[in-house]
Each structure stands twice: as structure tokens, then as C-alpha cells.
């Protein structure tokens, strides 16, 4: 009783602080802001090589695919490859002009990024003459491809959410998925504003992807006047699960935000279950890839908004097109034994977009770029895709609530829940919020 009383006071205090914060925020916003000297404009390309003499020769038209194919991220990479192959099959139902064949040139990004990976991308671009490159969610492979693509003139379609990739207006890069900033703002809005949460644990992985995502989330929280999240950085080479478990038990967070790869997510999620405090888990799109332990379900009909305090859920931000009636989701499910993740669906869409552009442009990188830049209203497996003049996908983002379960009222009520996957298969709700 005393605890509840104190909790009530604490909540009131938090509410007051939040109110004061919002007033301060409004006051700040009402001050006239200087207009920027310039906005970075559209990414036009006034370069060469659209002429037919620059068409790629040979019986094969190759699409480069960068994906992790060994080590802990292998399931995510294999999911991308499987999705890309399905798209190739679909794109090749009608034969290609001159008896050509559309193929994949796959590069394993599990190799050291500063050695073999750069060489492999160069091999793809210069020797294999890939017509375009698709990169995984990994920022390093996206950056290397972006640089080489800009220098040599090769379209790059990336799953990376890194801001130094997604916020750059270069004419050769197109982003299939949401940026860190978009994801962070959506999660923060849901978490702080809609659900009124205030105690959040931010778990990010060591390295560029985790750092960029964590920064984006802290900024999103700050923007809403929310208290800064408690931060925990996972070192993949020296994981410290006991420390994280202790943190979850001690701080009793209402929500965890995971900005990690799928492997780290697969390690963190069971810890949250063990802690048993029913914290809501929000995953960025990269964390929810194959190998994370997160299972997507083929229906989005049973949406119920998460209510603060009485639910625990796993939520992933994404566009939504993962319905069972879509041939891709059905065929992917039959082949892989599970529903596609958002990144897998985006990979399928990336190959399909390239194939469609190739039908119009022919095997020419510059003309292919022009066709990709003009993509509007494409109904893909990952949702509606429209590229703006900066190569960003303008599709609306959604939060997918994968499963809900009871959150204990106090620390004392916390109980470990059963195995994550087993639990999720028994009791699952699925839905979305704008």
C-alpha cells in the first residue's frame, strides 16, 4: 500500500515534470527560429552513360546482394538470399530480351569489412559488372557500396537505417526501409506519448549501427521532453548478460528498446523473459531480422493497442504488407518455415524493383537509376513504395504489435515467463498503429 502510494506520488511528480517540460518545450517552439541558409536539394544526376554503348554486355544480368552468410547473423543473410531468389523466379517468368538471364551475385558480409569486403564489392562492380547492388542492414556494407556506387555509377538499394546513409541526398542510393530517425520517433511517440511510459531501458550494440540507432532514440526522447532512457551497450565479443539481467531487475523498466542486430536480440529477449517484469520490448527493424527469435504471424486483424501498465509486448516498426494472401509471404513461409521479416520482404521488393526497372531501361546502370528514381506507388511485399527525390521511401511506418501478455504490477509480482517462442505461439495478437 505504501509502495503504491509512493508510486502514485512518483507518477504525479513525473507527470508534473513532464507537464513543466512540455510547457518549456512549447515556449521554446514559440520563439522565432532562424531559417536555414540552405536546404540540401534533390539528388539529381547529370552524369553520363545512358547511351546504348554503356549497356552491360553478356548473357547474364547480375544483381549484387550483400548479406551476412556466416556467423551469428547468418539466418538474417539467408533470409535475404531466399527472398531475393523468390523475386528472381518471379521476375524471370517472362523471359528476358536476347535470351539473357537475371542472376544474383551474392557476397558474404561476414568477412572483415575493411579488407575483403571492399575487394568483393569492387569485384562485383568492375569484374562481374552487376547492374545494381542490394545491401543488408549493416551500415558498413551500405557505406562501402554507396561510395563505390557514387564513384563508379551503380545504383544501390539498401536496408541500412544509418543516418549517414539515409539522410544523404546522393543520386545513386535508394533506401528500402525506414531510417533510424523515423523508427526512433515512431517508437518514442508510442512509448512516451501514447502509452505514457517513463522508465525505458535502451539496449544497443557496440559499433556504428547500434551507436547511430541509440543516438537517434535519445534524440527522439529528448524531442518529446521525455526523461533520457537508461542505456546499456552490448559488446558482442564480451556479452555481459548478468549485468543486463541485474539492470532489468533493479530498474524494473516499463519498456526495453533494442537497437541491435538479430543475434544480440536473440540473447537479450530471453533475459527479459527471465526477469519476468513484462517489459514491453520494442525492436528496430534490424533487430527483428531472422535469427532474433521474433516470429511474425501472417494476420494483422487482431490489433489491440498496448495499454500502459498491464501488457508486455514485442513490437517491431515496419511497413506492413506481410499478409498471407500475398504470394511472396506464402511461398516464403512454405520454403523457410516461417513468415518473412520486414528486411526479407524489402529484399524481395528490391529485386523486384530492379527487375521492373530493367524491363524498361535495359541493362544500363544510369538508365536503371533513372527508372528507380521514378518509382511511385509500387505495391510491394513490404508495403507501398514511393521514392522521394532524395531516394527515401516515403511509405508510412507502422508499429507491429506481435504479442501481448500481462505485466506484473510490482517488482514482487515479477515471474519468469516461459520460453519466448513457445509463449508467442500460444498467445499472440498482432496489429499495428500509425
Amino acid at each position, binding site marked *: 500500500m505504501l509502495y503504491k502510494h509512493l508510486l502514485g506520488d512518483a507518477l504525479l511528480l513525473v507527470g508534473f515534470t513532464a507537464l513543466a517540460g512540455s510547457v518549456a518545450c512549447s515556449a521554446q517552439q514559440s520563439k522565432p527560429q532562424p531559417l536555414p541558409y540552405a536546404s540540401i536539394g534533390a539528388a539529381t544526376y547529370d552524369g553520363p552513360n545512358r547511351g546504348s554503348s554503356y549497356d552491360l554486355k553478356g548473357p547474364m544480368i547480375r544483381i549484387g546482394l550483400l548479406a551476412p552468410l556466416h556467423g551469428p547473423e547468418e539466418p538474417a543473410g539467408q533470409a535475404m538470399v531466399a527472398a531475393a531468389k523468390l523475386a528472381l523466379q518471379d521476375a524471370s517468368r517472362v523471359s528476358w530480351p536476347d535470351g539473357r538471364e537475371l542472376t544474383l551475385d551474392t557476397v558474404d558480409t561476414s568477412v572483415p569489412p575493411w579488407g575483403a569486403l*571492399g575487394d568483393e564489392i569492387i569485384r562485383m562492380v568492375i569484374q562481374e559488372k552487376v547492374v545494381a547492388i542490394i545491401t543488408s542492414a549493416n551500415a558498413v556494407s551500405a557505406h562501402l557500396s554507396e561510395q563505390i556506387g557514387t564513384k563508379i555509377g551503380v545504383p544501390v538499394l539498401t536496408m541500412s537505417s544509418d543516418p549517414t546513409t539515409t539522410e544523404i541526398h546522393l543520386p545513386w542510393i535508394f533506401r528500402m526501409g525506414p531510417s533510424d530517425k523515423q523508427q526512433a520517433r515512431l517508437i518514442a511517440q508510442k512509448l512516451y506519448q501514447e502509452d505514457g511510459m517513463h522508465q525505458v531501458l535502451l539496449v544497443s550494440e557496440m559499433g556504428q549501427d547500434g551507436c547511430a540507432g541509440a543516438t537517434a532514440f535519445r534524440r527522439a526522447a529528448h524531442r518529446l521532453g521525455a526523461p533520457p532512457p537508461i542505456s546499456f551497450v552490448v559488446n558482442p565479443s564480451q556479452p555481459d548478460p548478468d549485468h543486463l539481467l541485474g539492470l532489468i531487475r533493479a530498474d524494473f523498466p516499463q519498456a526495453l528498446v533494442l537497437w541491435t542486430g538479430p543475434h544480440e536480440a536473440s540473447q537479450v529477449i530471453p533475459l527479459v523473459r527471465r526477469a519476468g517484469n513484462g517489459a514491453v520490448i520494442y525492436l528496430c527493424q534490424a533487430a527483428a531480422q531472422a535469427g532474433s527469435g521474433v516470429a511474425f504471424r501472417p494476420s494483422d486483424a487482431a490489433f489491440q493497442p498496448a495499454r500502459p501498465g498491464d501488457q508486455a509486448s514485442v513490437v517491431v516498426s515496419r511497413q506492413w504488407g506481410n499478409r498471407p494472401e500475398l504470394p511472396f509471404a506464402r511461398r516464403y513461409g512454405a520454403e523457410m518455415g516461417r513468415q518473412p521479416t520486414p528486411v526479407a520482404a524489402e529484399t524481395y521488393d528490391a529485386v523486384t524493383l530492379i527487375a521492373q526497372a530493367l524491363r524498361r531501361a535495359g541493362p544500363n546502370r544510369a538508365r536503371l537509376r533513372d527508372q528507380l528514381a521514378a518509382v511511385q506507388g509500387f505495391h510491394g511485399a513490404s508495403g507501398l513504395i514511393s521514392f522521394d527525390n532524395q531516394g527515401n521511401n516515403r511509405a508510412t511506418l507502422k508499429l507491429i504489435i506481435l504479442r501481448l501478455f500481462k505485466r506484473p504490477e510490482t517488482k514482487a509480482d515479477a515471474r519468469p515467463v516461459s520460453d519466448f517462442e513457445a509463449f508467442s505461439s500460444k498467445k499472440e495478437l498482432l496489429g499495428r498503429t500509425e
Partner: protein
Amino acid sequence: MRLRLLQSLRLATLLILAAASSLAAQGPALYTRWINYTPANGFPEGEVYCVTVDGNRVWAGTANGLALIENGRVKRVFTTADGLAGDAVMSVAVDKQTGDVWVGTFGGLSRYSGGRFKNYTNLSSGVANDLVYGVAVQGRYVWVATAAGVNRFDTYTGAWSIWNETNAPFNEPWCYAVSLSKKKVYVGVWGGGVLVYDLAGHYWKPYRDPDGSMETVLYRNQGLIHNIVSGIAYNHETHMFWASTYFGLSGFDGRNWHNYLTKDSGLASDFINAVQTHGNEVWACTQKGLSEFDYKTKIWVTYRPANWRALDAAKAVKDGRGEIIVTRPDGNKSKLETPTSPAHNYILNLAFQGKDIWVATAQGLSHGIIQSQQKGKINESSTNGR
């Protein structure tokens, strides 16, 4: 009919030169004659990424090898078949003391010495990465800008030094270009701004976009205009360094920044592949032409093919004519047409050879010449076409 056409052409040329002469009296001299090196005269196909002048020799790095031009002719094209580390050549530097040619490729670093190549790759040497974007020679040291940091190679001892995010203030390791002064090393970093290494003090100083935004420029001369730096050049006369970005041009005089965008200058495009500078001139290699900025008179001059907007269309007719856009400090613009032009509007780099310039374009190497008004020259330029 034909006679009338020739007379018109001659009159037009004279008018151009008169106008050019008039402009030159008030601003920079104009390059009205261009000689282009393309596959038609033995030059490799595809983009020319870099060009370096060594006396009468001109080295051009292309998508398909390293070309050597001597006395106006393509003397030789080196490829991996000749021992070059990679066919896509991003940078070339000549050691003035030894005559060695250092070549940065997308397959590692090559040293051309005594008629042979010796290669330095990530596996065989201390070079940080095989994607070598920039190279510069400073006495016994060779500085190398790679996709994974900066190297310094000691040609006397064979020792490699490396700077990256682990031992220097790199927030990104992707180094695109390197330029040298006597006391400092300037490195352009993709996403990381400009890093300057003090040779005496052995420390790095970063210069970054102060607004931190990749989508806006908050104040005009706020600092470096954008963190994605595509090129860097130190001016030994003015002691300024200039950084090209894909979003504008920045110069730093040691105290103040001087930034330029197309919106309020004569810069042809904010998408700049490289920058070079000497004397009062700053040259921005943009995707819409080659822009020269005379820092003293504040006059901008842009060179490009006259039909540049249609140049890349599948059935474009390349008539070889060029256009010169002169933008005065008050914003007034004037346009001249010339019988010849750079090979393409997409400019990738530039080098100086006395008063001449050599320009790396997306479809060939171009030699720009300040033409005199002598009659013979006029006829030559009129009849030479490209």
C-alpha cells in the same frame, strides 16, 4: 553558301575571342580551346577519375587503366595486365625527386618505378584498405587516403603508419582525398569532414559541419558546409584549404570559412566531385560543368559542352561546341559559345600545366588552353572541332 557559312563562323569566333579578351581584362583568362582525348584517339573508355601533370607528361586515371599522354598523344595505357593493382584508377601522384609514380586504385596502391609496377595491398603490406582514393608524396613519405583510414608510407624504411578511428579523431574512416602543405596534411573524409595533421606537433585537428545536419546548412559561413567531403586542396600561395562536398564548396583561410552554393554564386552545381586550387583560382569539378572561382575578383566562370543537357541522351548529337558562363560578383551572368568544349559536363578532377588545364571528365580527358587572338590559332580552333 559554304563561303558565307565559313565567314559567319570566322566572325563568330572573332567575336568570342573579343568578348573573352574583354572579360579576361576584368577577370580570369578564359579557356576557349579544348582538345579532347577519347577512345577515338586511343584513350581508354569510360570515366576519367583523376589527372596529374609531371612536366610534359600527363597521367590520367580512368575506369579502364592508367593512361600516359606525352606531346599530345596517348603514349600508353597501363592496366592490371601490365601489373597495375587495379584497373579503376582513382588518384596519381608523382615523386618529383625519384620520378616514381604512385597510383591509387580500387585494387590497392601501385608504385611505377623503373618501368615496373610494385603493388601494395591490404594483404601484402600495411596499406589500410585496397580502396585507395587519394595519394600524395611529401619527400620520403607517401600519404594514402583509403576507405579505412589514412596511411603514411616511409619509402626509406618501408614502414607503414596508419590513422583511423582508433587513434585519431575520425568519426568515419572513409578517406576520399589527401592534400599536402609543408607543415600539414589535409584529408577529406566521407562523412567525417576535414582532418588536418600537424607534422611538427603530430596531432590531428578535425573540421566538421557545425550544424551537424546532413539536410540543411544553417548559416552561410558557419564552418565546413557538409561532412561528406569529396575532395581537398591546399593553396600554397593563399595558404587556404578548399574542400569540395557533394553539397557545396568550402574554403578556410585559417580564421574564417568561405562557403559557396549554386543559390548565390556562379557555382555550376553543389554536387562537386573534386576541387583544385592555385594562385587566386579555385576550380570546382561539378556534375554540371567545371567552375572556376577567381578569389580576387569574385568572378565565376563555368565551362561545359553547349548541349550538355542533351549530351547523355541516347541519340544526342555531339557537335563539340562549348559554353562559358561568366558570373560577376553582382550576380550578372553572360554566356559565350566556343567552337570546342570539355568532353563532358560531368567533371571529376583537374590538374594544372602552366597556364593550361587538364580536366578529367566522365567521357574523356580534356586539355584546356587559353587561346590567343592570332589568326592562325583562330582558324585552328575553328577547324579542329573537338
